[in-house]
């Protein structure tokens, strides 16, 4: 194949790259566009189903009188022996809120009341803080990735390896957070077909969309590890360019981009 060359005539006349990028990078962009369609359909589907249910009325939430950082497990334990020490949502919190009519199959649960955990601060009502941390981790790992790409552009082998390493660490940190989030949701009794917080579709869509995204993060970490090993081995040094790091970087940034919208649709809206 390397002997097959065509003489250059005009931008779209063949014999050159009309976009001035390599074949591999163009294909990565086209793949990302198609993957963006996939995620768009999932998120648009989520939005449509979410708004086919009424939201939890604001006055119902206000009547709970939950203040930020309050110990909700103890609040709903009513002096029980295990006053919230190791209790998860399923023990006191969900039954109390189901009795109050806040969690019901007829209305969409407020993400405030579903995702209000934070590691090592057991039982406290801390809505949105953990996912904001996850968002921060992913944005930070995007920055380390782009710094790795920049190091590659300067043919800086050590720099590229260093920044790729930190990107991999960020990827694992994010995956651990997601595993923890899933564990909480599952121990509370959620499955793809059952949801103690409200309509089962809420849990089904949560597992589908965050699972699909989490699998992309996992694939991205694997690609980053392969690129990292190749950087260390000197494969790209020998090749004369670090474009593979850029292509893996494009994928990694895309995963970050999707999370921005998962965060918007699942936790903010």
């Amino acid at each position, binding site marked *: 194949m*390397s002997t097959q060359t065509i003489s250059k005539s005009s931008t779209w006349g063949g014999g050159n790259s009309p976009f001035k990028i*390599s074949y591999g990078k163009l294909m990565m962009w086209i793949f990302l566009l198609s993957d963006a369609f996939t995620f*768009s359909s999932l998120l*648009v589907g989520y939005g449509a189903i979410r708004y086919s249910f009424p939201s939890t009325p604001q006055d119902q939430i206000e009547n709970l009188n939950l203040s930020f950082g309050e110990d909700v497990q103890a609040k709903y334990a009513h002096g029980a022996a295990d006053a919230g020490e190791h209790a998860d949502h399923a023990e006191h919190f969900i039954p109390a809120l189901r009795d109050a009519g806040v969690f019901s199959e007829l209305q969409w649960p407020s993400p405030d009341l579903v995702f209000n955990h934070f590691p090592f601060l057991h039982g406290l009502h801390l809505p949105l803080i953990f996912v904001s941390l996850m968002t921060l981790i992913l944005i930070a790992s995007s920055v380390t990735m782009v710094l790795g790409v920049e190091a590659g552009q300067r043919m800086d082998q050590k720099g590229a390896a260093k920044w790729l390493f930190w990107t991999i660490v960020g990827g694992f940190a994010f995956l651990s957070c997601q595993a923890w989030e899933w564990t909480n949701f599952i121990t509370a009794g959620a499955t793809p077909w059952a949801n103690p917080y409200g309509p089962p579709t809420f849990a089904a869509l949560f597992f589908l969309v965050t699972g699909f995204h989490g699998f992309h993060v996992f694939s991205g970490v694997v690609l980053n590890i392969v690129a990292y090993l190749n950087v260390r081995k000197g494969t790209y040094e*020998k090749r004369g360019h670090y474009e593979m790091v850029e292509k893996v970087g*494009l994928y990694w940034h895309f995963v970050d981009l999707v999370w921005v919208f998962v965060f918007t649709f699942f936790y903010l809206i």
Partner: protein
Amino acid sequence: MSHANNNVDIHDEENYDPTVWVPKVHSHGTSDIWKRFWILLVLTVADVIAYFAVPPSMGRNVFFILMGILKAWFIVGTFMHMKHERKSLGYMIIIPMVLIIFLIFWLLFEGNFWGTFK
């Protein structure tokens, strides 16, 4: 493997070989990257503040979606290097996604309408 062939010039424009050709790249420095990081951080914090300060409404949802698009702009533009690519590539990728934004808004209202049948 074709890229192991040292006789081929990987940047050669005249004898273009699609299997190995890559454009010459140069670094744009790191100051731009860090600037975008701080912008993304501020936008995310602004989202969290709006979440706690403003009661839920369709207006707040529109705000969150617009903030998401703004964040996407910085991620695609700087981190994914799009602002340094040819415009034709940018249009090829961005125009289909702009159409998706319409789909998001339409289906949020459409979903609202489905709810009236329940």
